[in-house]
């Protein structure tokens, strides 16, 4: 009905006309959670002292982790590239200050899972010296500007952390450039203060983006609970060389969600599975815009961000400009955090943010707010009760889903139904869980279900691939076998012919045979995908080797020079033995009470393995011998050899395997014994 009406009105006026007239639309649902922004919304942006160490995770954004370009011990300057982006959707990591790289290791990240990620640890020298800056201007080449934004490691600073350059590199014709200053989540005021204090910077960023995208209209959207920010931005927009509309939108969570904001401002809906650029819209956060201005006009990449620190448990809440990589613990200490026996540290807002697990995790680019909440302030949800189908969730869902049905299906793990009910259109805003009278953690169910579906899809894909490859391999093996038979048959014929005929014929036959052999070889090697993969693997191996140059094995290399193959084999075996011995030693040393029996046991598996290796080697030798015989014999001998091949070596191999298995079992048993002893 509504859509009919709107499409009818669209015929009369274009959306742009309506927008120009100040028209706004409504998205479905929405809620009014208590805003709790009062504590920090009047506190000016302030800085904190440079911490003793900065932890720069390589996964601060959506997409591939960045790849380090510095090594431990390097000295770096402020703004220097530490890790470059890997692939299209990825973002660079920049040194937030000058200092030395003290470590590159796995470290806690600012992520809900609490999983550690690869992290560059930077020890600041407190000199804060910038690298040389090469500012660009508004009129610089587009490609150059885009490259600069990319190299500056700018991601969406609103919370999601999507690489900013990707959005700006779109080829689509852009109708609307929307600058998101809605900040609809409770507690957070970092964007509010940024707009109040640095409006000019934001507008400068908008001008750059306008250069790149050539939008027909530019709208800054701010929720109407931030009057100062609205005034400040209107003032800043007036100074601009381009037309910028500043629009106050009704305060309604989640109006700051990208899709919802687009609907409010333009009446358009981003089609499921598409991106805003597909309907001619690009949305960037105000802080992102500010960062872009800094990166392009000052050549100052993203080295810090504004973080709101609030909650009942900090005595000095505020909006702090914090170097990226500062540990949250340090930030909280600065804000005079008063820990209790139990509390929640929420990163982001209370609706979509997450509870931090490790307080030593660092501030990353998308950390816009840290809430140190007492258990009374943000209490745990009471136990889940039965759904009474009240439908409140459906009333507030901004994606117009059926949260209640989804919940049933999620509990049933009914993936088909979940897909039918568009689970993946859920933006996880939490409005449904907020209003649920039965306190069902709806969003959590959806997240788990989404993860399950993704996993199942991935497993299925892998299984299909594995099946394909297995079948392909079987076909190849069959073909190889046929070819081998063919070849030996041909060879035998040629030889027979040579015996009976004169030398002329012999030469022709030999040439023929050679050509055929060549052809077969060509066929074998023309397994195109394999070839590519081989190349890739070798490349990878090389890369790995070069990475491992720090731990060379001089002895092995020396012997390599003398008799490469042999020596290497010997070295490998020696190493394997050494390793085993080391393991044994470790076990022994960890076990003070190791008795004589144990020592015997430790010898036994070794012996068994040696025996196994010998047996194997023997098997191999017989096999080789047989093959050698084959080459010089006729048809009959081939079959005989084949049978031998199938019997003798097999037996030997079986023996070897059994011996090995025994050895392993003994070893395992011993290990478990040791473990028991230790306990």
């Amino acid at each position, binding site marked *: 009905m509504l859509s009919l009406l709107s499409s009818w009105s669209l015929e009369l006026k274009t959306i742009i006309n309506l927008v120009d007239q100040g028209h706004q639309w409504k998205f479905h649902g929405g809620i009014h959670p208590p805003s709790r922004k009062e504590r920090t919304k009047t506190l000016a942006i302030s800085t904190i002292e440079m911490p003793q160490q900065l932890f720069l995770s390589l996964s601060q954004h959506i997409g591939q982790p960045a790849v380090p370009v510095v090594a431990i011990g390097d000295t770096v300057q402020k703004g220097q590239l530490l890790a470059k982006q890997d692939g299209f959707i990825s973002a660079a990591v920049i040194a937030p200050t000058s200092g030395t790289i003290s470590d590159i290791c796995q470290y806690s990240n600012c992520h809900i899972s609490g999983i550690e990620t690869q992290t560059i640890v930077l020890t600041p020298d407190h000199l804060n010296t910038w690298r040389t800056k090469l500012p660009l201007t508004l009129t610089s080449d587009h490609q150059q500007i885009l490259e600069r934004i990319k190299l500056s490691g700018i991601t969406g600073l609103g919370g999601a952390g999507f690489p900013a350059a990707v959005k700006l590199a779109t080829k689509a014709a852009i109708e609307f450039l929307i600058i998101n200053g809605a900040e609809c989540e409770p507690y957070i005021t970092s964007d509010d203060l940024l707009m109040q204090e640095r409006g000019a910077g934001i507008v400068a960023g908008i001008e750059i983006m306008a250069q790149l995208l050539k939008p027909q209209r530019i709208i800054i959207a701010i929720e109407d609970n931030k009057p100062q920010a609205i005034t400040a931005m209107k003032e800043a927009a007036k100074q601009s060389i381009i037309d910028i509309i500043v629009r106050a939108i009704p305060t309604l969570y989640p109006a700051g969600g990208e899709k919802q904001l687009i609907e409010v401002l333009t009446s358009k809906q981003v089609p499921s599975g598409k991106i805003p650029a597909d309907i001619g819209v690009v949305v960037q956060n105000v802080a992102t815009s500010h960062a872009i201005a800094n990166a392009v006009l000052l050549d100052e990449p993203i080295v810090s961000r504004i973080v709101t620190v609030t909650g009942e448990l900090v005595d000095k809440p505020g909006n702090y400009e914090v170097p990226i990589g500062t540990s949250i613990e340090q930030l909280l200490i600065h804000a005079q955090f008063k820990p209790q026996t139990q509390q929640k540290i929420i990163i982001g807002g209370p609706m979509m943010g997450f509870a931090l697990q490790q307080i030593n995790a660092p501030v990353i680019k998308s950390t816009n707010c840290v809430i140190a909440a007492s258990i009374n302030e943000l209490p745990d949800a009471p136990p889940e009760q039965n759904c009474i189908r009240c439908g409140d969730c459906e009333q507030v869902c901004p994606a117009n889903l059926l949260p209640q049905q989804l919940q049933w299906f999620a509990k049933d793990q009914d993936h088909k139904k979940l897909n039918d009910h568009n689970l993946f259109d859920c933006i996880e805003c939490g409005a449904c869980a907020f209003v649920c009278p039965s306190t069902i953690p709806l969003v959590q169910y959806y997240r*788990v279900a989404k993860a399950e579906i993704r996993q199942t899809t991935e497993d299925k894909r*892998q299984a299909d691939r*594995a099946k394909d490859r*297995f079948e392909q391999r079987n076909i190849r093996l069959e073909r190889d076998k046929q070819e081998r038979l063919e070849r030996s048959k041909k060879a035998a014929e040629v030889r027979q012919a040579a015996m009976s005929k004169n030398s002329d014929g012999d030469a022709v036959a030999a040439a023929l045979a050679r050509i055929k052999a060549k052809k077969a070889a060509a066929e074998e090697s023309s397994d195109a995908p394999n070839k590519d993969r*081989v190349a890739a693997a*070798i490349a990878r191996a090389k890369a790995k080797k070069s990475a491992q140059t720090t731990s060379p*094995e001089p002895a092995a290399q020396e012997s390599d020079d003398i008799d490469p*193959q042999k020596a290497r084999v010997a070295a*490998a075996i020696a190493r394997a033995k050494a390793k085993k011995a080391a393991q044994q030693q470790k076990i022994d040393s960890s076990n003070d009470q190791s008795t004589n029996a144990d020592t015997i046991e430790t010898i036994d598996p070794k012996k068994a393995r040696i025996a196994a290796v010998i047996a194997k080697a023997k098997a191999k030798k017989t096999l080789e011998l047989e093959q050698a015989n084959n080459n010089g014999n006729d048809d009959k001998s081939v079959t005989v050899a084949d049978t031998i091949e199938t019997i003798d070596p097999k037996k030997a191999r079986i023996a070897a395997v059994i011996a090995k298995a025994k050895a392993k079992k003994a070893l395992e048993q011993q290990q478990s014994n040791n473990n028991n002893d230790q306990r």
Partner: protein
Amino acid sequence: MSFLLIAVIILTGLGLVFGLLLGYASIKFKVKEDPVAEKIDLLLPQTQCGQCGYPGCRPYAEAVANGDDITKCAPGGKATIEQIADLLSVPIPDNSNNDDIVIKKVAFIIEDDCIGCTKCIQACPVDAILGTTKQMHTVIIDECTGCDLCVEPCPVDCIEMIPVAQTTKNWNWQLNAIPFKQLES
């Protein structure tokens, strides 16, 4: 008497007509279905590991279709057993170790130790190991099904099965699994 006869004749006639109709319909509207083995094969994890005692997933699927035990697929674990049970409408056997969670592992070649014997390459059922004679070998992690078959043939024991690491990307949102953290204040 004639009533009885008429009734019998009519009923017989009706039976015949409907029988023919049904017979015709069953031929005419026959739904082409995948054979059961095909369907079972689709449920199996395709690791081709042979732990079931058959040389690959397809042969096991055929064996199950012919009445073999459905609990032999170790990599598939509980989920696969349930799916097959569901497909074949048979009860889930009790003796299956239902509660063990299958942790996906992939093979990893310790490259320093590799002597380039190509034995693992021959063993790999899905061609997921690259390398050639006297050259170091590498496992294509994305293609590895974790079947274990390459571990045994290696003469220098340089292949290890390592569990696929959990990253922020494949994390499954199991918050309940996270214990409360104790921290020094």
